[in-house]
Each structure stands twice: as structure tokens, then as C-alpha cells.
């Protein structure tokens, strides 16, 4: 027997009509990418868990406002997540800087090289944390999470060219920071 996986649109239609099982399928389909995306924006496990849950709860309660003519469900969901992350970022001023684990560097290079790399990574995390919006979000979505540029543009509500320009500026800032170790304006 052939079991077809229902597409987002039919699941959204069923969920809008109150079918919680259909919404559960959507949660299972998108929990990982939403979680990853939020973690890249916050680098804090508990905050990620809370914001990811809030994203799906908010999506469920606003399903009647979702317009498939304006974009895909995934883009709409990522936009909710991105807005929640930005609000949270404003509230806490800065998320904690990601702490790299020592064992990740154990089998590459000499201990001196590993320590240097660890420092570079730490500095880049700090630089990314300090990077201003909207450069930070565009960089995380397009480069770190490797979302297609058209999707990043839809999430950010700007043209693809604008995303390219933001990403390019963000990279420039990060490279400059890495070279000079001076804070980004």
C-alpha cells in the first residue's frame, strides 16, 4: 500500500480546522530546522527550547491568518521564530557567547594550534553576537543555516539583493574582527 506524505498545505488546512494531529505532523516536520535556527540566534539551550515551543504555539493560534498565497508555511514559521528571537535578543541585550568544547579540537593540529583556533572561534562568536541587526540574522540564516537566499529574503521581507548585500557586509565585519580583534561598530 502506498502511503503518501501529506504536503504542508493540506496539513495546514486540516490543522486550521482544529485537527491537532495534523499540526503535530507539522511540528515533527519542522522542529529540527526551527530549533537549529533559533539555537544559532541564541546559542542557549533552554532559551532555544522555550522560543521553539513558543514559535509553534503562536503558529497554531495564528493559523487562520496564514495566507499560502503570500508564501510557504515554512517561511511563515521561520518568520515567527525570527521575530521571537529578535524580541528576546532585545530583552536580554546579548545572548551568552557559545562556549566551544575542548574535545572538538583534540585530534587536529598541535595543542598550540588548537588553542589558537579555539580563541579565533570564540572571538568570532563574540563578533557575531555584537553584529547589528539585520546583518546578524541575514548572516545566520543564509550562511550558517544555509537557507536559500530567496527564503531568507522572504523571511526578512526584503529583496534577494538586499540579503546578499547584508551577508557580504556581515562577512566583511567578521573577517575584519578576526584580523584586528577590534570590536565591530
Amino acid at each position, binding site marked *: 500500500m502506498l502511503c503518501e506524505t501529506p504536503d504542508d498545505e493540506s496539513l495546514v488546512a486540516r490543522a486550521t480546522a482544529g485537527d491537532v494531529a495534523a*499540526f503535530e505532523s507539522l*511540528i515533527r516536520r519542522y522542529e529540527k530546522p526551527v*530549533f537549529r535556527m533559533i539555537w544559532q540566534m541564541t546559542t542557549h539551550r533552554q532559551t532555544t527550547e522555550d522560543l521553539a515551543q513558543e514559535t*509553534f*504555539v503562536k503558529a497554531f493560534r495564528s493559523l487562520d491568518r496564514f495566507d499560502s498565497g503570500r508564501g510557504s508555511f515554512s517561511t511563515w514559521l521561520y518568520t515567527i521564530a525570527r521575530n521571537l528571537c529578535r524580541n528576546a535578543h532585545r530583552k536580554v541585550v546579548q545572548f551568552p557567547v*557559545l562556549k566551544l568544547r575542548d574535545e572538538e579540537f583534540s585530534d587536529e593540529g598541535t595543542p598550540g594550534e588548537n588553542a589558537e583556533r579555539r580563541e579565533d572561534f570564540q572571538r568570532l562568536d563574540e563578533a557575531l553576537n555584537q553584529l547589528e541587526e539585520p546583518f546578524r540574522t541575514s548572516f545566520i540564516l543564509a550562511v*550558517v543555516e544555509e537557507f536559500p537566499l530567496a527564503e531568507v529574503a522572504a523571511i526578512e521581507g526584503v529583496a534577494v539583493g538586499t540579503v546578499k548585500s547584508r551577508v557580504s557586509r556581515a562577512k566583511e565585519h567578521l573577517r575584519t574582527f578576526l584580523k584586528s580583534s577590534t570590536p565591530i561598530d
Partner: protein
Amino acid sequence: MKNEPSDSLEPWIRERQEAAPKPSADFAESVLQQLKPPRRDEGAAKFLVWGGKLALVAGIAVMGMVRTYSSLYLMCSNQL
């Protein structure tokens, strides 16, 4: 533009991608728990029980007062 994490930033980007955790196994259940409407039936049952008790006490009190006043009225009217 396929997002090209080239040059000096690439190892750091790869590290960040690998460091990203996965959601907990019960993530979907936790979300679904929050979507459940509050259990109104339990609240309604409590309201009925306490409302019923209150109505019974109030009814007994009113009946007692009526009986007391009617007895007093009869007593007074007999004396007159």
C-alpha cells in the same frame, strides 16, 4: 549565490553547524500540551457542586426566616 562560507570563516561556521543541538524527544508533546484548551468541564463541575450547596443553605435560611416571621405575625395578631 550559493552561500559560500569560504576562507577564514569556514571552519568556524562548520563548527557552529555541528554544535547545534537537537530538540528533546518530547518536544512535540510539550507543544501539544500547551495547545490543549483549559479543562472547563472540571471547573463547571466544581461550580455546580458549590453553587448547589450555597443554594440549599440559602433556601433553608429563607424558609426559616419565613416561618419565624409568620409565627410572630400569628402571635401578635392573636394577642390583638
